[in-house]
């Protein structure tokens, strides 16, 4: 078999985190009953006209600046014409001729090393509505709540050659956009959608092979599987002496298989022309500078600062900055309690554990840095012990309660009463002669058991230092 290399370019759609749609004042909130977030504009009523949401332009500019793009100073919108029921006007307002950003790049790092991935362009456009298939009536139902939600489409150069690189690039984009607050970039929920353009060519060939476009990729895992599957499929075709057809394919992750989305009714001729209902967007240096000045500290800078200013280990800084939300909590909590490493431990340890248990994303965290800092300080000043602290934190995580009041109300303060504790220890020793014997025979583990029994008898509130001290004295 010949040797092949894979050439991959991505088209990434990102739903912007604006409050309103791109061309009307309808809410972009998720979860409304069908068509309750609609108006004449986003349902294509005759006579309605679009008016551009300024925030969309600012988010698009911010993403462009953060990905080293050149910002187009004279922008226009174009109409992309095609018939489909989720597209109420039967044209989509997009940008073909003068997209807002061009010629950018992002740096990625994989096991294969560092690499720069080119961004061909970023353009603004409107999202389509949602089609729900009704099996009972053998029809489809159209909900335009998502129709007109603002999107940016980030089109990369065909600079990637493996699933690893694709995922590294997507991670990088996701972080940049999340740090900007321009989108939450969730693949599962569709706020980030990835289409993979892939072709293969013989090693050393001068021209790219025919590419296909893969859609319906809802997770990084699906993307990796689809890339491998499509690469194999194309190589097999070529090995059999057949050719690859340029087409759009849909990935079915359950069946680990893709199929061509073909229809003789689709001419794929979008008849783009300048949108006559919108005027040009002119971005002057002043506006550009204003957006640039609002740019947040991005991950790499943050990571370095955490290592240098807070003395965090690189491992800690790496995990915390992976999510803007965690970084925000880290900084605010540290500001209050001045204990960066402790904050980091709680985030990487208990917080991550609870997120995993509850199958939550860091973005869904609801506890406040104030209450979080209180938990840490309660341990630090000896008010509660570490075991109780975990229980208290869990409640803070779940309900964001005030831990001071909670500890007070539930009587969870650490028991430092040496006389009282001595009594308990004496009872524990009397009840567990075997462990005492084990201890004297050099089994160090036995003391742990006795500490545990004492803590249990003291309802978990005993000061573990005092218990240890008394135990050693009495034994």
């Amino acid at each position, binding site marked *: 078999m010949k040797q092949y290399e894979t050439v991959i370019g991505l088209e990434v759609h990102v739903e912007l985190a604006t409050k309103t749609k791109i061309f009307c004042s309808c809410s972009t909130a998720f979860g409304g009953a069908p068509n309750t977030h609609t108006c*004449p504009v986003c*349902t*294509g*009523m*005759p*006579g*309605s*006209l*679009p*008016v*551009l949401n300024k925030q969309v332009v600012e988010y698009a500019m911010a993403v462009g600046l953060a990905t080293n793009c050149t910002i187009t100073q004279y922008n226009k919108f174009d*109409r992309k*014409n095609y*018939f489909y*029921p989720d597209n*109420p*006007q*039967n*044209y989509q307002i997009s940008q073909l001729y003068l997209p807002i950003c061009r010629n950018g790049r992002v740096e990625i790092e994989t096991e294969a090393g560092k690499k720069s991935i080119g961004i061909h362009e970023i353009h603004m456009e409107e999202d389509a509505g949602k089609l729900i298939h009704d099996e009972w009536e053998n029809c489809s139902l*159209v909900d335009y709540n998502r129709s007109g939600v603002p999107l940016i489409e980030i089109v990369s150069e065909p600079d990637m050659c493996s699933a690893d690189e694709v995922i590294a690039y997507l991670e990088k984009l996701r972080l940049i956009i999340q740090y900007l607050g321009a989108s939450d970039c969730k693949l599962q929920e569709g706020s980030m959608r990835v289409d993979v353009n892939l072709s293969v060519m013989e090693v050393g060939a001068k021209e790219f092979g025919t590419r296909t476009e893969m859609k319906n990729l809802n997770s990084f895992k699906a993307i990796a599987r689809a890339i491998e599957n499509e690469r194999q499929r194309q190589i097999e075709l070529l090995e059999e002496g057949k050719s690859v057809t340029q087409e759009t394919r849909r990935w079915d992750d359950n069946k680990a298989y893709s199929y061509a989305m073909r*229809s003789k*009714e689709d001419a794929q*001729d979008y*008849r*783009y*022309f300048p949108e*006559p*209902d*919108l*005027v040009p967007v002119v971005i002057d240096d002043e506006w550009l500078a204003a957006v640039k000045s609002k740019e947040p500290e991005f991950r790499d800078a943050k990571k370095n600062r955490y290592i240098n200013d807070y003395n965090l280990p690189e491992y800690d800084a790496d995990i915390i900055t992976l999510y803007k939300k965690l970084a925000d909590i880290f900084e605010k909590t540290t500001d209050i309690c001045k204990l960066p490493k402790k904050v980091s431990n709680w985030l990487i340890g208990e917080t991550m554990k609870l997120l995993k248990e509850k199958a939550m994303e860091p973005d869904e965290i609801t506890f406040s840095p104030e209450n979080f800092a209180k938990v840490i300080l309660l341990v630090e000043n000896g008010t509660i012990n570490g075991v109780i602290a975990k229980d208290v934190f869990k409640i803070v995580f779940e309900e964001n309660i005030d831990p001071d009041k909670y500890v007070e109300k539930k009587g969870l303060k650490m028991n430092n009463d040496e006389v009282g504790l001595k009594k308990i220890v004496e009872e524990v020793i009397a009840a567990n002669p075997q462990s005492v014997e084990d201890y004297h025979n050099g089994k160090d583990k036995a003391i742990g058991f006795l500490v545990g029994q004492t803590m249990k008898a003291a309802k978990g509130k005993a000061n573990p230092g005092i218990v240890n001290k008394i135990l050693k004295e009495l034994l």
Partner: protein
Amino acid sequence: MNIMSLTAVELGKKIKQKEISVEEAVIAALDSIEAKDEAVGSFVTVCRDKAMEDAREIQGKIDRGELDGPLAGVPVAIKDNMCTEGILTTCSSKILSNFNPAYTAEAVLNLQKAGAVIIGKTNMDEFAMGSTTETSAIKITKNPWNQEHVPGGSSGGSCAAVAAEECHYALGSDTGGSIRQPSSFCGVTGIKPTYGTVSRYGLIAYGSSLDQIGPVAKDVTDCATILEAISSYDAKDSTSVKRENYDFTSALVDDVKGLKIGIPKAYFEDGLDSEVKAAVLNAAKVLEKKGAIVEEFDLGLVNFAIPAYYVIASAEASSNLARFDGVKYGYRTSEYEGLHNMYKKSRSEGFGPEVKRRIMLGSFVLSSGYYDAYYLKALKTKALIKKEFDKAFEKYDVILGPAAPTTAPKLGESLKDPIKMYLGDIYTVSVNLAGLPGISLPCGVSSQGLPIGLQLIGDCFKENNIIRAAYSFEKSMTYNRCDMAKQFD
């Protein structure tokens, strides 16, 4: 007193002075429609009950002093391509025959705020595509001056209704001459304002970059007054222009001394009917006598306007009319197999031949491989045409010419040869391409007894120049009312 023979402003005054009640005015209009519309066919919808209800409400507001504008209580007819909440809006098309809009067009809202009573919706060429109102899927409208002739189009219903005195004034829309040409054919006055002056929000789009709403009325005073009422900056229309000046009635001055009027030589060459030519040139003489400086000049690119216009308007229309697909509103075919068949059948059964012709042409000129040769070429031509007008307006305040090359043709003749029909737009389309204001007003009657229209074109945002010239000219003319209108005298 015949209420219907009053102008809108005259009626408004009498309502204000309590000589006529709003209800009386509305009843007079409804009676007139009842009596004449079977013959004329101006209206596709008459809002009898709603108009009577509105009349009482508006009378109350006038009595309480909440409304005191010049149009308060005056009945109006609206071209059926402007959305009116609670009133069918059909664009004279089968595909929208049952469409009940969820909102009202901004221009109509402005009129309602001024106290207008909507009496009905007027017939038009389907989706404003046509020059005779014969492409309407609903009915034929006849020219009130001679019922064997067309009223012109596409605002034929609005112009015929005003000429026949079925209403006091009407709104029309003008994409390539659709207010000015039927005004000329019906012997009424109509203004196509500068692009961006009247909000397009709620006007069902034909050619978005060309469409403007404007007034159709009996005289220049009415037109200026109505234009003042409907114009506004509208944040809902991105192409709406914030003008410094929305005062048009102050230009109603009988004085053209020193006004520089240019007559494009190319407007008076082959194809212009000799009677029309004589009447229009006579109008120029009248203005010259009153002190205007009139001279002929060479306006370039006159013959390129129609091809450029039909490329741009059809392209935009092919996209604007894509939304009529049987999904959200309007007509859906009764039997179909699958989605695409539903689309095709609904649209093929719902649109008439002229609309289909333009959608096909528009889709073709935008399609892959032809965009540059046709669409881009047309946009470049438009830029050059605009330049020609810019040059002309460096020298002149007003450009004078005919509104149409002939008087109203006979019914049933025009649609046989579409291109010949399109050529009739020669004096009007360039005004839309360049975004200019234009007015058409009567300047004579042909030997056949059909009205002849004079067109005055102004520079962008200079409506007041053409209003002043038109008003001055009108002052020197005796107004010809059509026979149909005199029926109740």
